[in-house]
């Protein structure tokens, strides 16, 4: 039997529409969906060829309970009763990670469970590891933490500025739409990245700053704009505050000085600033319309010890030039996972309720009335802190859904030691990954291909997920598992179990829409009829919102915040560790690779961790293309294959953070954090690279990696 199911890609934040073709209950082919408003018939390799992971034999098929150090299969009743019995003891010392891969419905039920049943706001998800600095800065300066524009704005912009992101690898379909703009409309392209990414091949200006000097770079651009009088005075006067203080800070140095700090040419820096502030109109720009510029950034900005400052410097630039709130401009922190946006929207963050609503009296009261019980009003602990505070005993039990922190946390060896100290760990996921191995109870969840729900992509578009195949084994949707558990625990917590008596994902969504003003106008019925809808969508007649901030910012005026270049990074190269390690993603694997390692073709494409190194450094170290190399930092080491390329700067090495053959970059990275957002500094740390010594005879069985006992 053959079926076709219109659904949404489970990989990245682009949120492409896919049509899953099945034959006899197995996925046979994934087609693009020309009608999808976000992807318009485009797809990338992961969406197209990567979904077979859902039928991998490694999929968990039954709940597992640890008995005497061994996992034994259990029934749902056994597993859930065990959890329901153990968890109440950890109230007050409990934390939970939600999954940015799961649906909005899953996330909503999970945060409700944590807040209502466990009585804590200790819930967080991977935004902490990617865009929390952006969200932090945007909330502070603009009052909303979402991407302000839509993908169609990239096509309508006259200039695109890509900073510290590699859409060609991480957001392939956004990259396609950007290339379309460049090819068809002559849109100018400015690329800022320490690594020469694919998009740089088509760029008008390509700046390769020294790692960690981003603030200086953006201040330099601002200075150039001020020097040439290209700022948007009307916008500054009417829509912003704090301009003078900020201006004074920027004027402390000249463009030449800024450029020198970053190791880029002052002339190029000026030209980049000019293109951003006042680009020449693209072909086909409606007459009379001001040419717009889009600013997009990625982890290269945020995963630094001063990631929030980096984001602030960028937002300052957007405010200075007024490139906000019109078609063809705006700011976009490019989201990594398919549903980071939605997971935050649904309330899986420690500092606000669903829809980024504060714990303040009247809002919390609405929730309390709807849920028929009190909710905690103090902000919870952030994800990275939860792990760090295991040591102090503040967190003794955790419930982790669809995350593998033992691959994604920085300084893995340290993190693993902490997780081993937990008294009780529940992991709910598709595979028995590194973190799950340490769990007391493992629950098998359904993949995206087996359940109903919604994802919200980077452009705030809420899109439907629909089941294409029957659940694998005894797995159940995340929301259903948590709701079942909550019903078992509700009486003990003094909550009405009917609060968790959801009959379908649609019922969950309806409750979420009711409680979240920005989603209020969206329903499954509308999504099925109209396709994806971009929030804010306050009522059922509202068409959704393409770009934000047309005439005001949620906080009123946009706020300039002065920022100054600090030490480039918490850990700088020295004689023992002379190179700077830069991490990122590759096209063929997705994040840590828990999923993509299970797609045969993706593994064939890239079987080993590539270590990209500049030809001059390679020559100094006597390393040839393709040889096995060991990369060491103060915290660990990995082995990989040398790729010699001038795409990286001299003095830097680049390693994607996928884990292949037991090697992963996060054994090396530093657990230094950005203060306001608590994001770890993945992007910069000091390492040394050496040729792998031939293994001494007899030492077989002890692979020279930092992997834990298998």
């Amino acid at each position, binding site marked *: 039997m053959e079926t076709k199911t219109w659904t949404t890609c489970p990989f990245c934040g682009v949120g492409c529409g896919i049509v899953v073709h099945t034959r006899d209950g197995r996925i046979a082919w994934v087609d693009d969906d020309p009608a999808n408003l976000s992807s318009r018939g485009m797809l*990338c390799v992961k969406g197209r060829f990567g979904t077979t992971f859902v039928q991998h034999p490694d999929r968990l098929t039954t709940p597992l309970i640890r008995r005497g150090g061994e996992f034994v299969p259990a029934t749902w009743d056994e597993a859930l009763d065990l959890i329901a019995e153990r968890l109440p003891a950890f109230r007050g010392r409990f934390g939970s990670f939600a999954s940015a891969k799961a649906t909005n419905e899953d996330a909503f039920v999970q945060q409700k469970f944590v807040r209502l049943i466990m009585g804590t706001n200790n819930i967080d998800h991977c935004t902490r590891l990617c865009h929390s600095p952006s969200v932090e800065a945007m909330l502070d300066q603009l009052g909303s933490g979402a991407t302000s524009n839509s993908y169609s704005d990239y096509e309508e912009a006259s200039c695109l500025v890509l900073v510290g992101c590699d859409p060609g690898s991480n957001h392939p379909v956004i990259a396609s739409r950007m290339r379309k703009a460049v090819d068809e409309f002559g849109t100018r392209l400015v690329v800022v990245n320490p690594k020469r990414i694919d998009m740089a091949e088509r760029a008008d200006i390509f700046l390769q700053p020294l790692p960690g000097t981003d603030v200086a770079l953006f201040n330099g651009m601002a200075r150039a704009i001020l020097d040439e009088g290209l700022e948007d005075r009307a916008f500054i006067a009417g829509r912003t505050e704090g301009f003078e203080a900020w201006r004074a800070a920027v004027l402390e140095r000249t463009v030449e000085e800024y450029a020198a700090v970053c190791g880029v040419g002052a002339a190029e820096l000026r030209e980049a600033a000019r293109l951003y502030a006042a680009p020449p109109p693209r072909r086909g720009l409606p007459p009379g319309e001001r040419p717009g510029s889009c600013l997009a950034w990625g982890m290269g900005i945020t995963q630094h010890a001063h990631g929030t400052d980096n984001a602030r410097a960028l937002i300052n630039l957007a405010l200075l030039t007024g490139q906000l709130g019109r078609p063809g401009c705006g700011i976009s922190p490019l989201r990594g996972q398919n549903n980071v946006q939605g997971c935050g929207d649904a309330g899986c963050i420690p500092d606000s309720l669903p829809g980024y609503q504060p714990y303040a009296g009247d809002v919390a009261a609405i929730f309390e009335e709807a849920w028929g019980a009190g909710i905690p009003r103090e902000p919870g602990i952030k994800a990275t802190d939860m792990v760090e505070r295991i040591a102090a005993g503040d967190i003794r039990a955790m419930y982790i859904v669809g995350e593998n922190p033992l691959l994604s946390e920085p300084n893995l060896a340290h993190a693993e030691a902490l997780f081993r100290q937990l008294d009780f760990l529940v992991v709910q996921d598709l595979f028995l990954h590194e973190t799950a191995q340490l769990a007391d109870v493992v629950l098998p969840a359904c993949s995206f291909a087996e359940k109903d729900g919604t994802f919200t992509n980077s452009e705030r578009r809420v899109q439907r997920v629909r089941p294409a195949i029957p659940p694998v084994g005894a797995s159940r949707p995340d929301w259903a598992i948590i709701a079942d558990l909550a019903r078992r625990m509700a009486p003990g917590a003094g909550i009405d179990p009917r609060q968790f008596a959801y009959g379908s994902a649609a019922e969950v969504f309806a409750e979420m829409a009711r409680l979240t003003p920005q989603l209020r106008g969206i329903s499954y019925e509308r999504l099925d009829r109209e396709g994806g809808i971009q929030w804010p969508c306050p009522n059922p007649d509202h068409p959704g919102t393409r770009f934000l901030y047309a005439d005001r910012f949620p906080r009123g005026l946009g706020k300039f915040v002065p920022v100054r270049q600090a030490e480039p990074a918490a850990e700088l190269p020295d004689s023992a560790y002379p190179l700077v390690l830069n991490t990122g993603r590759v096209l063929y694997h997705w994040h840590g690779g828990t999923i993509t390692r299970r797609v045969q073709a993706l593994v064939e494409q890239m079987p080993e961790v590539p270590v990209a190194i500049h030809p001059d450094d390679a020559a100094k170290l006597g390393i040839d293309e393709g040889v096995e190399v060991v990369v060491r930092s103060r915290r660990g080491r990995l082995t990989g294959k040398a790729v010699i390329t001038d795409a990286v700067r001299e003095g830097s090495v680049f390693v994607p953070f996928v884990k292949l053959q037991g090697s992963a970059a996060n054994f090396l990275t530093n657990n230094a954090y950005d203060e306001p957002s608590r994001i770890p500094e993945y992007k910069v740390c000091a390492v040394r690279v050496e040729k792998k010594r031939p293994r001494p005879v007899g030492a077989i069985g002890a692979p020279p990696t930092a992997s834990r006992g298998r």
Partner: protein
Amino acid sequence: MRVDGQEVEPAGTILDAVLALGISLPHLCKDDNLPAIGACRTCLVEADGRVVAACHTPAAGVEEVLTASERAVRLRRAVLRLTARMHGPRPDVEGGPRSAELWAAYGEHGLEQPAYPRRARDTFDTSSPFFHFDEQACILCGRCVAACQGLQHIGAIGIAGTGTHARVTPGAGVAFAASICTACGSCVAACPTHALRPAPSSRDGVRFERATEG
């Protein structure tokens, strides 16, 4: 406008109108997701007495379209006979999602035996783990190139060479794996034959080794 006697709104191209009525007409180079290319010439119909390619002739201004007139069918058959000159027998493997289009077109036009000697071309590019390119099944319709250049804006492949030297070529004459191909698969999705088809390993969930885990 009337198509084979049925009234229809003349919006878009003649092909749009024909397909909207559920009439089957080959359109081997026109993918629903891509603009008209006009290369395969298998969508010929008679429009107000002229023989035109339905995929790129606007419906507006046309009154009477005949898809099954003796002349249209004869010419389509003749084009398909020329098409058949390019490829060998149907490969005995699973094709991409649209790979049946070519064989269906032959079937509908009663072509079983190739009329002309085959023009052998035999590149077989298995360098990508995701899909294979089997040139002997390629009819040079150009859909794959349109998908790669026009839809995905990647430009990993082109049709190099003129006349009978024309050939789907990644990069400046390299293999797929050595080109800038990102394996997005849009070309595979578009191909109306078995030329670009998913590689066996990318579609079968069972052929995995068990992945090693921590």
